[in-house]
């Protein structure tokens, strides 16, 4: 009995890890007009598990933590600025409509409804194009920086044994700030 329970737990952990490994996060930073524009796209995130969760009527959020950082050879990389974007979907099983919301640092930026799953998927994972998240005023000219984006969904499908295990998807891209 114990062996079976342990096997299930190991299987669940392995599956979760493989799913997380399959996802990729493409990040494209761009410096323009005194702002650092960040585009990113979470690929292969709409897994069956996510779809089932969305279609269960739960409010599912894709939380993106975006950090503007500078590499350091001697010490930990310094974080210049950070932002958090949350894309939320709530599927109404009665009307078959997706209610979508997007927040930046806790502020609701936009909301919409759609019947199309593709639109909801794009809203949650791909419609992040050239977001003016950071000011470039604090950046040094001709210096190299990078933008790191970490994404995870809530509610977490946490396990009992070790709920602190995180399967965040991370992507980052360097850019040289040219003034």
């Amino acid at each position, binding site marked *: 009995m114990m062996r079976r329970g342990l096997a299930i737990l190991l299987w669940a952990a392995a599956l979760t890890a493989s799913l997380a490994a399959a996802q990729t996060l493409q990040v494209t930073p761009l410096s323009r007009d005194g702002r650092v524009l960040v585009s990113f796209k979470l690929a292969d995130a709409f897994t069956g598990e996510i779809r089932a969760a969305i279609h*269960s009527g*739960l*409010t599912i*959020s894709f939380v993106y933590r975006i950090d503007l950082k500078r590499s350091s050879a001697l010490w930990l990389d310094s974080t210049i600025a950070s932002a958090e974007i949350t894309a939320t979907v709530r599927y109404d*099983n009665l009307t*078959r409509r997706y209610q979508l919301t997007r927040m930046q640092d806790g502020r609701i930026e936009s909301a919409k409804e759609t019947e199309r799953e593709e639109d909801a998927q794009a809203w949650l994972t791909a419609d992040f194009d050239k977001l003016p998240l950071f000011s470039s005023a604090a950046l040094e000219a001709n210096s190299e920086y990078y933008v790191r984006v970490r994404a995870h969904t809530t509610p977490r*499908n946490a*396990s*009992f044994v070790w*709920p602190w295990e995180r399967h965040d998807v991370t992507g980052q891209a360097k850019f040289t700030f040219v003034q």
Partner: protein
Amino acid sequence: MTTSVRDVRRPTLPARQPKAPPPPERRPFRDNPRLILLGIVLLFGALAAMIVLADQSTELNPDFLSEVVLYALSAADLTMVLALVFVLARNVVKLLVERRRGLPFSRFRAKLVLAMLGLTIIPSVLVLIVGGELIRSSTERWFSQPIDDVLRSANEIAVDYYRDRETVVANHAERIAGVVPAAAVEAGDIDAVRSALAPEVTQGRVGLVEVYRIQEGGAPTPLVAVESPSLPRGHVRASGAADRLAARVASGSPDRRVHEPLDGGGELVRAGAVLREAYTNRPVGVVIASDHLAGEFAEHSRRITEAYEQYRALAVLKRPLEGVYLSLFVMMTLMILVSATWMGLYLAKRITRPVQMLAAGAREIGAGRLDHRIEPETRDEFGSLVEAFNTMAGELAGSQRKLERSRLDLERKNQQLDERRRYIETVLERIATGVISLGADGRIGTINVAALRLLELDGAVVGARAEDVFAREDLRPLEALLKRMHPGAADPAAQEIALTREGRELHLATAATPLQGEEGEFTGSVLVFDDVTPLIRTQRVAAWRDVARRLAHEIKNPLTPIQLCAERMRRHFGGAPPAARALVEECTTTIVGEVESLKALVDEFAQFARMPAPRAVPSDLNAVLADTLALYKDLFHEVRIERRFADGLPAVRVDVEQIRRVVINLVDNAVEALGGSTAAARPSGESPTIVVETRQDAANGVVRVTVSDNGPGISAADRDKLFMPYYSTKRRGSGLGLAIVRRIIAEHGGNIEVTDNAPSGTIFTIELPV
């Protein structure tokens, strides 16, 4: 030293010093019933909270459930596991250390703890395993295919109905958009539009129709609305949902349907259509058609969907929920386990601790620390046992104090006896009386210095049989005395015995006293003897003085008539024939001469008898001796008189004239012994020498004057009689010189002895007290 108890030590007897009261100890948690009760209440409260939480878990916000509750429970579980491991590890280490140190009852306590831990841990772990599997299988059973099918079908029905209504309303909107004249809308002719809409509403096809006019470049604005009386009044225009839908439709969005819940129940199903100008197909307005879904129906549909969604959400949140249930169960198990473990350890300690305390207390008592006490921690049987132990220790301490007091009394008495014994010993050692104690077996127990000196024995005789010691020739009288002593007699056997010491007689007054025990048995005897030689001498001198006085009186009186008669006869026969005259002359001369001699002899006897008491004054003895010896200057050329006077001699109370007489007497004797004016060199080649020496003996408080010569000396037989009156070794001596010398010295409280000089000669030693 203390067995985790308050060690109430007191100083050893007899002094008992006051001790400051110990600071109040804080009772440990395990011994505080209130805290234990509080802990039990908290435990049950936590268990109740867990039950409530588990009951409410499906209704919690999923984010809160998976982000907070599960994390918190897992953290709490881990903390409790760590606490349990810590408690177990701590106690296991303590048990191992106690066993390694060989503490008493450590093995028993280890077994007790292991038994109690086994009784709690094994069932708890089994329950945890079985319960966990039950929870897992229960969550699996939440999701069965029939329920899934039913919920899915019910939801499909509700969805299809909504879809149908949406489609119907959308078709109505499209149809109405074709019926309403575009020109009227564009022109804002409300009446024309209303008249075109009225049949749709009145015929009951839709409940509400709203027409928006799209002006060039602007947002659609409400133009006219026609509603059925069956619709809830008052809020249709208030929601704004139609405005937003109209805007969306006008923008060309394919999303042209919306459901609007109403406050009073029910929903409005809205659908929009673009109203176009017929020839140019230019949008001039938007038609929003709405149909009212009754509240009860909408509510049922929504419930069906909610049930379906809850079921689906449950499937999605299965892992976190399962985790929450398992965490709660693990937490409850851990709480019970920790509590049971702690209680087991506590009980083991409660059982073994008093026994350990008693054992440690017994060791302390055994080590003599009778003031050791154990503080009772409970009022149960163990507490009674501890009280009994303390009572026993108190009684032992009291008995020990009594014994200690008795010992101190005994010591004090022994000390007194010892002091008394030392005092008696000192007295016995110092007195001139010889004392010998004999045991019942006839062995010498003690003998004082005077006895050793008088009998010329050494300390080795202690323990020897008296008959062996007294078997020596000169001590046989003592043996005879002891034999004469009757063991049962109360009176001592006394006898005066005379011993010979270096040719001198030593007179001892001896007494042998038998010692008797309490029951009259013979326990030994004491032999006491005093040197009565000086007394006898004094008695003899007194006798001689009496004789001298009688002689002087009886002889001197007839001498003068005899002398006068002889002289008369000489004168009478002065005229007689020569022969007769010569005979008479010779006879009378002889008579007169002998009478003169007799007179001189009588005078000396008279002087000896009438010798006055000395008038002693502090005097410089060296000066007295020097003045006296000055008389002999150039008197005897053949005899050398040598002076050896000690420096710093203290003043001595003497009668100068009498001392001078003593010295003259002794020096005269010495000169005569050396041959006087005809003295010749000694056989050893030395010149005839007389040494007069003074010496101080501070230890005995006397000054010694010695007059020694290197003459022929005095035989041992004559030495003792030397100081007797009328004893002389000289042909013409009266025999009173040394008798007078001894008397003078005796009158000064001193003593005179005569010994042989080496290699020849005699030494007279005078001791005068300072």
